[in-house]
């Protein structure tokens, strides 16, 4: 399985195989807690922490864990990290912890994390598993930020509301589109992002085809 370079291990998760936007995993937190940038960042960091910790530990103990009980062991490891993250957040950022509600505890069943353990960390070295976890974790934070920024700007007219860095980005008489901080806004925002991304991907494959076989594409255009 060493057919990828370390750079690929890292960057793959950020964009080309982004867990939320491309693999469509972890949509539940991406829809539920991205109604403000602060919530999105804290949720992203908590998931990053759990993912990195679990990948590190799973890749370290992969030889010791018999295959029959591997999933139970992974879940146990993940649940431990989640509970640690939950208690730490409650102590450090009580307001955001309250806003995230049950979704911190639900990181346990976030399929991004278990998928990385089963598909990567349990088969690769500690170093590569860490790189993979970093990349996927950053990719998740990027996706959460893309959702959170759009929703907070349109739905509340601010960025980082509720923190010391609060900025009012839409001045004047703008009436916030409240729907964007409500659940339907999550679906709308995700839908538009996916639309933009798949449009870019389609354009890219089209261009690659023209590059590889320009005469054929031109001939087909003429025929049409």
């Amino acid at each position, binding site marked *: 399985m060493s057919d990828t370079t370390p750079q690929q291990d890292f960057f793959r998760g950020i964009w080309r195989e982004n867990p939320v936007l491309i693999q469509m995993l972890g949509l539940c937190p991406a829809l539920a807690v991205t*109604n403000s940038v602060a919530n999105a960042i804290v949720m992203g960091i908590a998931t990053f922490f759990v993912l990195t910790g679990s990948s590190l530990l799973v890749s370290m103990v992969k030889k*010791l*864990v*018999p*295959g*029959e*009980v591997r999933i*139970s*062991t992974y879940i*146990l*490891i993940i*649940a*431990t990290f989640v*509970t*640690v993250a939950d*208690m*730490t957040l*409650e*102590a*450090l950022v*009580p307001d955001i912890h*309250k806003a995230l*509600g049950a979704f911190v505890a639900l990181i346990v069943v976030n399929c991004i994390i278990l998928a990385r353990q089963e598909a990567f960390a349990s088969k690769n070295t500690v170093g590569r598993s860490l790189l993979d976890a970093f990349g996927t974790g950053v990719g998740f934070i990027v996706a959460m930020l893309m959702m959170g920024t759009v929703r907070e700007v349109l*739905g*509340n007219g601010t960025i980082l509301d509720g923190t010391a860095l609060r900025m009012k980005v839409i001045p004047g008489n703008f009436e*916030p589109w*409240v729907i964007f*901080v*409500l659940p339907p806004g999550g679906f709308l925002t995700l839908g538009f992002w996916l639309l933009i991304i798949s449009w870019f991907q389609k354009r890219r494959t089209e261009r690659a085809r023209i590059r590889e076989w320009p005469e054929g594409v031109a001939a087909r255009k003429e025929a049409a």
Partner: protein
Amino acid sequence: MTAPAPFQPKPDVPAWRLLLTLGLSGAVAGFLLVFVYQLTLPIIERNKAERLAAAIQEVLKAPDHYDTLYVSSGALTKALPPGADPGKLEAVYLGYHADGTRIGYAIASQEPGFQDQVRLIFGYDDATKTLLGMKVLESKETPGLGDKIEKSEAFVSQFDGVEAPLKGVKAREATSDPHEVDMITGATISSRTVIRIINDALERMEPMLESYRAAAVPAAGTKAGQ
């Protein structure tokens, strides 16, 4: 294409190894969690106490000091009943001016709102039966509509000086009745919840407040913030 062979556990993994793996990881996880719990618990408790103290300061308009009165068997008592956990008993907070005169009580209460339990604290002067202020402690009301019960200055400021029992009215039907609170357009249920919580809490507490007022001679209490 042949169907994949059913998963066969390798015969060479004995049961004790499976048990040992899960048992060991469970034990390690348990120890780690206890350790982090012990580490974070005091900080979490302190955050909660600080938030409550700040809310009391706000709804009683910066009292010089206040007493914590516990609700025990239908009466208010300053002394903690023996064997009771102070965190589990309902409590009201009696604030004083610097010269020892009473400001009023801060009473916390909760009831279901539009989404979830709404928990709030309000200041109440039992001598004039007037509210001093209201602050929502916990709510998950709809952002942009229901959450105005805590974010709208116009709504929150009405609870300073309104007389109990409260009566919610639509803003355009408002008269000069001192019991009236203008409700928020688009957040009728959330507004009613706030009014209901306060009225219910007062109905429940009023006899206790009165008997405490009759019995107790005002004495110096603990300093504010303790």
